Each structure stands twice: as C-alpha cells, then as structure tokens.
C-alpha cells in the first residue's frame, strides 16, 4: 500500500480497511488479520494500526472478540450503508468534476449514458 503524505496514516489505513470491507474482501463476521500482521503487511507502526482499528470499532464496522482479535460486523444494514457511502463519495467527486467542466446535471447524465453505449458497442466489459 502506498501512502499519501498529506493525511495521518491511521486515517489512510482506516479508509483502506473500510474499503476492503465495503468491497466485500472481508465478509460479515470475518476475522481481520492481527494488528502485528497488518503492521508488517502495510509496513506501518503497530500503534498506527491500533489507532485505525479503534476508530473502526467506534464506528461499529469492527468489533473485538476478547482474546481473538477484530471481526467484521454482522450488521448487514450497516455494511450496506458503508457501501453506499463509498459510492456516494465517488459520485460526489465525479459530479463536481463534471460541474467544473461546465456540464449541467442533464448534460452529465447524457454524457454518462453515451459513454456506456459506446463502451457496450465496443464489446467492452
């Protein structure tokens, strides 16, 4: 994982894990790797990993089983919400970029529709 150097690393790890969960790489009820394992895998400090996990615990995305580690919540509603947040994030970025290109919402939708059509014609996935 490559870190940006303008955001605390615990926040980047929090985002990264959040994404892994939202994308379904970790399923509801899955145990996530140990703190030390994550630290070694991501080449970051243990304190930093702990900080990120603590925040995900506070948001109830993860929960701790004593002596066993961190597990992904089984609250599917919360996970759906997590996924929606990620999607909304992407849309927000996209739409503000389109706005910067002076496209109205109508024109943006039209451009998007066209894009998908052309992509399908090319037989892309």
């Amino acid at each position: 994982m490559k870190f940006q150097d303008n955001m605390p690393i615990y926040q980047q790890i929090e985002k990264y894990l959040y994404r892994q969960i939202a994308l379904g790489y970790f399923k509801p009820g899955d145990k996530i790797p140990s703190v030390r394992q994550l630290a070694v895998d991501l080449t970051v400090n243990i304190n930093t990993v702990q900080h990120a996990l603590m925040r995900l615990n506070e948001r109830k995305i993860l929960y701790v089983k004593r002596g066993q580690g961190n597990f992904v919540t089984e609250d599917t509603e919360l996970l759906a919400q997590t996924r929606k947040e990620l999607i909304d994030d992407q849309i927000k970025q996209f739409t503000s970029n389109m706005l910067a290109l002076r496209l109205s919402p109508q024109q943006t939708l039209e451009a998007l529709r066209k894009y998908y059509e052309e992509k399908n014609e090319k037989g892309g996935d």
Partner: protein
Amino acid sequence: MTNKELLKIEHLDYRKNRRVILHEVNLSIGTGHIIALLGENGAGKTTLMRIISGVAKNYHGTVCLAGHEEEEKRKTHLAMTDPLKGFLKSSQLNDIVVFYKKVYSDFDSERFEELKDFMSIDLSMKLSQLSKGMREKLIVALTFSRQCDLYLLDEPFNGIDAMTRKKIVNSILRWKSDDSTIIISDHFVTEVAAILDDVIIIKDRTVFTHVSADEILKKHQSIESYYESLYEGEE
C-alpha cells in the same frame, strides 16, 4: 500506545574541547514509540545517543531512563547499535554472537536465531567479508536480540540499498515488543516515515522540535517537506 514516561532529559548541556555540542536539551519520551531523530551531519544526533546510553560522560543536566539516572543502571535498560569496530576484521560472526551472549545477560538467543534467519545472515562468514548492507543487518539483529526498554539505532540506513532498508524496517515492526521504544537517527526520512510515531529534530545544538507524525500529516504536509522547510532560507 501506552504513555508512561520512559526517558526524560532535562537541561542537558554537553561540550567537547570547549565547543558546545548540545545546549539546553529537554526531552520526554514515552514507552512503545518509534521515533526518528533527525538532523544534519554533525548536528549532535550520535552525541545525544551516546549521552543517553551512558558512553559519553561529563555532561551537565539529568538523563533519566526507566527511573534511573546512574549511567550503569541506565545501560541495563537500553541497547545501542555498535558499529563493531572493536572486533578484528578476521572475526567470525559466530564468535561475535558468542561475545554478545556472554556480555549481555538480556541477550535472547532465540530471538537472534529468528532475526538471523529473517535477514539471511551467514554466521560462518568473517566480519571483513560482509557488505555494508549485510553488516548493518548484523548490527541491527544483535541490537534487537537484547531485551530492553529502549533501542537506539544510529543511522542504520546510511548508505544501504532499498531492499536492505526494507528488511530492517520490517524486522523492527516484527520484533519490536509493544512497550519498547525505538529511536532511529537519520538525515532523511522518506523510508521510515510511515512507521513513525514521533519526530525529533536536532538543530542549532538543541531539540528544535519534538512533534507527533500525525500532527505533521494533519497539516497536509509530508514529514520530509516539514523537515526541509525548517532549513529554508539557510545557506
């Protein structure tokens, strides 16, 4: 991260041949941290480490490690990298390990075995046969095999290739116990930035700043550019 105080330095002054090397250094460091000690060549990083470890004497002020001010007691709570200059070039690495086991009662042979394997160190080699990177790996492995509260790594990344640096960084993450604190001196910071809790910068013969890595990044600045910005307008 526990926040018990491990090391406290107050009003430290150090001169050598009438020249002021360090002046009015104050520092408080907690347990369980990984800290970069940054500064230009000759800023006094090594001197500060030598004072903490009890090798450099005749300083003024107090240095207190794990509740001990006496040098002899401090020494039992810390391990500092030794450049191995006291050994003959023809020494076999095996003999150096035997020496470490004899001299340091906190030397953990099992941990050394693991570190040695991780770093692929061949103990049948002679000191003179080691590349710079291999030598640094050996030094770090020997230092880390001691079980103590504070590890002082004096420029472990100086002049070694990226793969070796990565290996050393990984060994730090793997073998560091939760409560021990590591201070790594260096004059640039890119390769260790992600593993740091704190940054200490030595400048103008004193501790110029002691700041958490998160604080720097929160201001949307990399540790590297923060460090460089302190030197802007000089020279």
